[in-house]
């Protein structure tokens, strides 16, 4: 069965079709959740919620779009944001320690970059992860963020420029 057929069947409640669509998205969803939450258990919970909500709301699948990836990743992104906000303790949180195995020469650059990423607002870290780590096309990044492709593109330019003041911008691949 082709992708469109799978989506159609999943929308109609075909368990196997939904499973086939879901399985390849579990790993990228977990990567995204872990990058946002930095806690394995919380990230696993977010992915589980994605699967539960995806199945419960399967009627929202739109086969004509050809993919459910942005929709499901948007569920994960919302779950992460909610998890961060719903913390019930009052804490200070440190950035993760640097990886000591990194060679001395690269340490400063990489540490700077990681710190720069840490200091970005949630929405910008999400944007970078979707585009650079999950390799989503800008149109899907925009769908996950709930903004237009043009806005996603321009935000990507601005985020990368902010992280590296000396850098002109990044060429965004549509």
């Amino acid at each position, binding site marked *: 069965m082709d992708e469109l057929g799978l989506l159609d069947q999943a929308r109609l409640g075909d368990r196997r079709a939904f499973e086939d669509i879901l399985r390849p998205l579990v790993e990228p969803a977990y990567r995204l959740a872990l990058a946002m939450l930095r806690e394995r258990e919380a990230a696993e919970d977010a992915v589980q919620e994605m699967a539960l909500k995806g199945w419960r709301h399967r009627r929202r699948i739109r086969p004509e779009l050809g993919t459910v990836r942005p929709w499901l990743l948007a569920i994960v992104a919302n779950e992460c944001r909610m998890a961060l906000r719903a913390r019930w303790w009052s804490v200070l949180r440190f950035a993760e320690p640097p990886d000591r195995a990194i060679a001395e020469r690269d340490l400063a650059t990489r540490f700077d970059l990681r710190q720069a*990423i840490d200091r970005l607002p949630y929405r910008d870290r999400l944007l970078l992860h979707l585009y650079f780590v999950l390799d989503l096309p800008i149109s899907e990044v925009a769908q996950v963020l709930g903004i237009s492709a043009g806005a996603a593109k321009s935000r990507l330019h601005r985020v990368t420029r902010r992280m590296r003041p000396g850098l002109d911008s990044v060429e965004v691949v549509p």
Partner: protein
Amino acid sequence: MTDERLAVEIRDAFDSRHVPSPGLENKVVSAIPWDGPPHRTASVPRLAGAFAATLTLLIVAALVAPSFLSWLNVQIPGITGGPQTPAYSLAAVNGQSVFVVQRGIPGQVAGNALLQSSDGGRTWSDRLHFVGVYDGMQVFGTDGFIWAIDIPNYVLTLYRTADSGSSWTAVPAPIFPVDDVFFLDASHGWVVSGSPQTGLGSEPLYETSDGAATWNRVGTLPQQAPMSRVFGVGTHRVTFSRQVDGSLRGWDIGAAQLYTTTDGGGSWQPVAISAPAAVAGWTLTPTQPAFSGQEGILPIAYRDPTGPDNATANRIYLYVSRDGGSTWSDPQPAPAGFAPVGDIVSTSILDSKHIWLTSLSLSGGDNVQAKPAVARTSDGGLSWTVVRNTPRILVMTFADPTHGYALDVSGPDNTNGILRTSDAGTTWQRVDLSVKP
């Protein structure tokens, strides 16, 4: 740096923290309730009609439900009981009253319940039910506010009381998305506007001087976002304090810098904080200062960026101000063992002299270390009393130097609970939240 190089480095930066989760795919798939019916999706015209009807019902329910349920002493299904262990937030302590929020769990437990006890936690009254992700509560004598933020649209749901928490009235929400809320008193408050959909670098700050009836934009925040955890229950990115001459000074937590404003939020300047020699060159994480008149306390956490991430490598210092926050000096170190283990330190500041700390390790989720402790000072950090083997306390709030409440976790499932102390935190007694008057 080329585009390709930057892309690789960004990917590496994220990947360097990746922790595999073997078997997750099968676990996720096997947990899906395949036989459950799908949620219905309504057509647009039907949706409009349904929306209007639902809105009417919600308004009626919001007006009637809390007092009606309280009168009947009825629990909303899902709020208590059932397979989910209730999660709590220690919302506020105000004189003889303590407020606890029994939190809803999005997708699992509907809504939050605000519980109030005025007899030291012996009996509890069910005061308010509200939806959204509970975010905070502040009380000022007989007045107070409680609020939730709806995800993903960042809609603020705000209630206020004028009778010490007995009854609550919904306050019309601002039309812009809200990311952070703080009230200085019953009239003055600030919100940071923002959501994942908001543009970059222009997080506007709004102010109210009429108890949240109207909001006016007063400026934008410095472009240095804090760690995400600043946004959470009982925490604030932006706060304001009142000076002895009646003027206001504001505080904004950046990722590694505290900012201040003296013009109501129109402009912000970095706060000068000189690191003690022992932590020179370390990265710092600021928190919000607390004031008693002109005297202020500012906890700052330091971490050695090249050292191991453990208790011996991290430090927390309490800075003192005697001029309402214009200058900060005399950093006093927290006692040994109260540096952040991994990333967590919890502080409770009653006034510039009385401060409590808890030390916990929450790495890898909610795995709290076996032997937690509480430290307290009554002289602004010059000397400390440490109580070891306490309950696993996450956060404390004190009504006076001896009486306070705490939120803890216990058992293998890290069950939430509320504790009270009458001896400044030396001993703790568990409070039963199920007893209704």
